[in-house]
């Protein structure tokens, strides 16, 4: 498709006029006119012809009308492979569209004409041709309101947006966007971005409802299980009650109880009979035992009398023997007493002599001790007096060792000061012939003491006065001497030697006092008073002993004394033994006496008990007869008892049988009562559940839960499918974008290289807009580029699309209306080169007011003619 001529009638400034742009050739066409010549009017009118419906009344149409009004007409001559066509539209008061062939024949009108144009332009009124229009760039003259920069930005934005829009259209992206939006909306209604059920969404609500119903169902199922258990239990209870209420079984229990009670009554009666027989037997046995006791008593008394007589005889014999033993023991004891008395007396005499000799020796020892003690008292007193005297002598002696040490230090200090003063001197060394003279004498080399100021003569120089500083040292010497004198005065000593003599005298006195004190301490460590008390104590002891006799000085013979003591012990032991024997004899004698008395008494009693001889025999015969009768009765009663016992039934068994029969009846009654109570409780529970429609509610809830779970599952499947759909759409859209951007960038690369070597554009995959340019290693955001560069990139991008369409066999004109207003001279030249490159197989129509700047563009120069409308 190529434009060959454009004609405007009654459009804007061309009111009542026909303006025609003719001679539009292949390739570059430049319409370079001054401002206000109508270039933008041609641009806008051509755009309206192509993209505004003939019956439109919108802003674009209104902007074309001149102030004087009237119909607006736009016509274009279009060359197609099929031939030359004229496409004309009238807007405003005359609304029509016409397509004519090269012969002037009308091919289509109005809507048909619009469809013809749409087909011509590829994909409709909003088709790719729109991409190739570049409206007037930034001039600041369109509205007069916005600033230049804002206008520039808005223009570029419109341009780039249209680029993106056309890409979308080509890739089908707009429709896909709507599909994606619909799918995303459906997905968002169900799920979160992470695929989880969205809160308050239908999926989440379905899950919540399913969970709620599931929990309700489980609870009801549990209750129904309880109800079923109750029903089963109720059946079992009814069965047990029926068994318990069975008439035959009840009769059997009653019969069993009656029989047991009868057997028990009979057993009780027989037991009474056994008890009576046992009592009779017991009574007979008592009578027998009594008779036996009487006979035994009689015989016992006879035997006792005989025994007591023998016992009496024996007691009498024993008493006689005991008396003899007693007499013998008494004699032995008396003899032992005598021997013991004699032995003790002899021993006592020997022990008295021994005691007296001991006291004599003790007295002598005490005397000796007294003498020693008295001597120590005297010596101690002597030492005490000596010590007191030494202490009294020390009191006035003021030169103590400390005082003497102070005096010695002061003396030494005075001596040191004096010695220091005496040390001032000079040392003379000569290296030449000249000599120092003093009072006319040459001063030899070496040290020379200075005792006071002196003047030396220095030949050839003059005199030298030396002063050893005697006046300055005097105060130290005076202080030392003064301190020394003060120390002596303090000790009341005239000089150092006297002080030293006084110090030695004091030391001697101190040693004497220490010696006396030490001796005193040895003699009387606790003082003189205890020593004197010891003397008094010994004297008292001696007084108590009295004066000893010389005859008592000899002690007893030790062997004699020891033998006497042994004899004394032996005779005492013999006496003790004899006394023990005597006491034993006395006890035996007493026992024999008592035994005799008892035997005498017992025998008398026994004799009294049996009475006379004839009466005793008769009593024995009578008792024997009574016993025989009692024994016979007892045997008879025992036989009767054995017989009745042998006939007795098993009482314990009968009692157990009765207890069992009674227990069975009672247990049946209790079990019946318990089961009736349980049945009543079960009935109440079951009826309560029935009233509540529990099973019905469970079935209903179960079905509703299944429905809710199925619904939630459907939502889950739907969400998963939507997620998969969205992922697939995103992947394929990305791939499609890549597929379309490849050719676009391939077309763009050589165009971009004309302006910038090694430059490449980057695009935002979401907006499909150029986002930056990389030159070398430096990436730059589009917004950081200059306005001119941005503008150039926008135009080049369009040219790339134009090349792409041309290669696809649908070439459409590229129309630029002052699109390069910000490009400098160098860049605009390069843009011209780019335009020429595109124009090799593409028609490019450039409107511009920049006549000088575009002078170098070259290409065809269509003619603009304006003439009144006929």
């Amino acid at each position: 498709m190529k434009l060959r001529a454009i004609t405007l009638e009654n459009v804007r400034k061309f009111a009542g006029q026909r303006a025609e742009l003719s001679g539009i050739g292949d390739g570059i066409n430049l319409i370079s006119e001054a401002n206000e010549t109508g270039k933008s009017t041609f641009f806008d009118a051509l755009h309206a012809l192509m993209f505004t419906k003939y019956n439109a009344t919108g802003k674009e149409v209104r902007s074309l009308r001149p102030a004087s009004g009237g119909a607006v007409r736009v016509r274009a001559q279009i060359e197609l492979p099929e031939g030359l066509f004229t496409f004309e539209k009238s807007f405003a008061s005359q609304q029509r569209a016409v397509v004519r062939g090269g012969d002037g024949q009308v091919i289509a009108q109005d809507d048909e004409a619009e469809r013809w144009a749409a087909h011509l332009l590829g994909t409709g009124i909003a088709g790719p041709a729109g991409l190739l229009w570049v409206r007037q760039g930034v001039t600041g003259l369109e509205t007069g309101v916005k600033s230049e920069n804002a206008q520039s930005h808005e223009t570029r934005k419109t341009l780039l947006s249209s680029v993106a829009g056309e890409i979308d259209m080509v890739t089908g992206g707009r429709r896909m966007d709507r599909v994606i939006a619909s799918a995303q909306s459906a997905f968002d209604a169900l799920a979160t971005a992470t695929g989880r059920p969205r809160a308050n969404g239908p999926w989440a609500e379905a899950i919540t409802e399913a969970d709620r119903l599931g929990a309700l169902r489980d609870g009801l199922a549990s209750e129904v299980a309880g109800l079923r258990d109750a029903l089963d239990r109720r059946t079992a209870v009814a069965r047990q009650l029926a068994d318990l209420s069975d008439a035959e079984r009840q009769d059997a229990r009653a019969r069993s109880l009656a029989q047991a009670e009868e057997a028990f009554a009979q057993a009780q009666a027989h037991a009474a009979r056994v008890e009576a027989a046992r009592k009779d037997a017991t009574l007979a046995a008592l009578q027998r035992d009594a008779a036996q006791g009487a006979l035994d008593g009689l015989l016992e008394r006879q035997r006792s009398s005989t025994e007591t007589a023998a016992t009496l005889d024996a007691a009498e014999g024993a008493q006689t023997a005991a008396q003899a033993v007693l007499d013998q023991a008494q004699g032995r004891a008396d003899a032992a007493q005598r021997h013991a008395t004699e032995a003790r007396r002899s021993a006592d005499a020997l022990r008295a002599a021994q005691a007296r000799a001991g006291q004599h020796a003790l007295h002598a020892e005490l005397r000796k001790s007294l003498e020693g003690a008295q001597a120590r008292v005297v010596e101690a007193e002597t030492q005490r007096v000596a010590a007191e005297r030494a202490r009294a002598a020390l009191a006035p002696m003021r030169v103590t060792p400390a005082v003497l040490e102070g005096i010695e230090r002061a003396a030494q200090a005075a001596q040191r000061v004096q010695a220091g003063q005496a040390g001032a001197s000079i040392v003379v060394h000569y290296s030449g012939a000249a000599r120092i003279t003093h009072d006319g004498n040459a001063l030899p080399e070496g040290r020379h003491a200075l005792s006071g100021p002196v003047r030396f003569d220095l030949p050839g120089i003059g005199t030298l006065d030396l002063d050893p500083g005697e006046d300055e040292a005097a105060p130290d010497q005076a202080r030392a001497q003064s301190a020394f004198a003060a120390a002596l005065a303090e000790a009341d000593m005239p000089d150092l030697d006297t002080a030293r003599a006084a110090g030695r005298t004091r030391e001697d006195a101190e040693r004497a006092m220490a010696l006396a004190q030490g001796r005193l301490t040895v003699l009387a460590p606790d003082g003189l008073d205890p020593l004197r008390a010891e003397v008094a104590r010994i004297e008292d002891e001696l007084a108590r002993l009295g004066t000893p006799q010389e005859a008592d000085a000899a002690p007893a013979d030790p062997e004699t004394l020891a033998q006497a003591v042994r004899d004394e012990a032996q005779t005492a032991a013999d006496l003790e033994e004899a006394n023990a024997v005597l006491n034993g004899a006395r006890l035996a004698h007493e026992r024999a006496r008592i035994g005799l008395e008892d035997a005498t008494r017992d025998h008398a009693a026994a004799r009294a008990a049996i009475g006379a001889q004839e009466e005793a025999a008769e009593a024995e015969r009578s008792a024997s007869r009574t016993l025989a009768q009692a024994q016979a009765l007892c045997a008879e009663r025992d036989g009767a008892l054995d017989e009745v016992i042998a006939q007795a039934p098993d009482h314990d068994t009968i009692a157990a049988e009765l207890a069992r029969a009674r227990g069975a009846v009672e247990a049946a009654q209790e079990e019946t009562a318990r089961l009736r109570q349980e049945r009543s409780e079960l009935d109440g529970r079951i009826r309560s559940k029935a009233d509540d429609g529990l099973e019905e509610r469970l079935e209903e809830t179960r079905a509703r839960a299944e429905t809710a779970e199925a619904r939630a599952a459907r939502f889950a499947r739907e969400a998963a499918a939507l997620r998969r759909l969205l992922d697939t759409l995103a992947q394929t859209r990305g791939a499609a974008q890549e597929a379309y951007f490849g050719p676009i960038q391939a077309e763009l690369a050589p165009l971009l290289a004309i302006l910038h070597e090694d430059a490449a554009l980057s695009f935002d995959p979401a907006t499909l807009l150029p986002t930056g340019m990389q030159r070398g290693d430096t990436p730059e955001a589009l917004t950081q580029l200059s306005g001119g560069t941005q503008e150039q990139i926008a135009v080049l991008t369009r040219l790339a699309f134009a090349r792409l369409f041309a290669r696809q066999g649908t070439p459409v004109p590229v129309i630029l209306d002052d699109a390069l207003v910000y490009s400098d001279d160098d860049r605009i030249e390069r843009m011209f080169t780019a335009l020429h490159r595109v124009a090799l197989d593409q028609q490019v129509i450039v409107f511009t007011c920049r006549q000088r700047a575009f002078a170098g563009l070259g290409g065809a120069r269509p003619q603009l003619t304006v003439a009144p409308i006929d």
Partner: protein
Amino acid sequence: MFRFLHSSDLHLGKPFGGFDDDARGRLRAAREDVFGRLAQAARDGGAGVVLLAGDTFDQETPTPRILRHARNAMAQNADITWVLMPGNHDSLAATVLWSTLAQDRPDNLILATDPSPIALGAATVLPAPCTVRSPGRDLTETMDQPTPEGQIRVGLGHGGITDFAALGQAAPEGPRGVIAPDRAARAGLDYLGLGDWHGQIRIDARSWYSGTPEPDSFKHDVQGQALLVEIAAPGAAPRVAPVATGALHWHASLLSLTPGEDVPALIETMLPPRDRRHGTLLRLRAEGRLSVGERRALARALDASSPDFLSADVDLDGLTTLHSDADIEALDPTGGALRQAAQSLGAQAVDPDLSRGDREEARHALDLLHALAAEVAP
């Protein structure tokens, strides 16, 4: 001669929780009104007795309202003698149920709660009530007991027979029961009326399952029926005639579809007549394959028809959508990303390396893509 109506499995009190409130209400009402329809069917057939062979109640503890309503319904049809026998759902373990009925029993109601013979004019009914939910033994053995000479012997039992499979397609999913299928012959019965199976089945000339008078599921796909039975004399062959008693219809259809079907016409053919739809519960399952357009047409037709029904449960998950090149081209004539997305999902839907779940998910996503793209004008 003895003429009676044999029915069973009323399942009063069944809640139908899977349906919406409107459908649930009508389902329950239809079930509760079945006494009147049974009574009328008996009258119309000249019968004065209705034998209910178990499962009159859906639960062992029906609500007092259900019990009272049933009692009143039977009492109101006073010209009919009702014989109620416990089934497995309302077995004798439901002591409260049966004791409540016994306490307030109308004169025309006989409770067959033990195997004792029940004299009904020329016939003696030998019931075999279910003692518990699953007795585990053939309770109909008690039908061997003698009856007065000259009496027609009618057995009433509940549960499955031992060889349901022998009945073939009549009961393809029949329960495994314990009842001897030749019980009628063994016990010398003139007729054995059975309950438990909701479909109506003839076991032999003397043994029948009556089926439920008011269906409660899509399982049997028949209208509710009862059996009108006439026995001329002991030993005579019974004359058994099904009679319609159902108020609502349960209609289950399986659509097996192939491409090229005239889907709207097929739907219209498969669905019940329009005048019946208001009382019909529909469950429709589709399987097979359809093109995108055909599937869309199917969905539109079903969307249009569903409101006609008391309830419509439509499941197209078993239907595979064929996405032809033409469909995909129509989806995106430019050959752009939409078409590529469709092709990608189509490939995923048949990718053997993917799990079955992923393949189905991809197929679903592809269907969604077509549906969403159709909503967006090209």
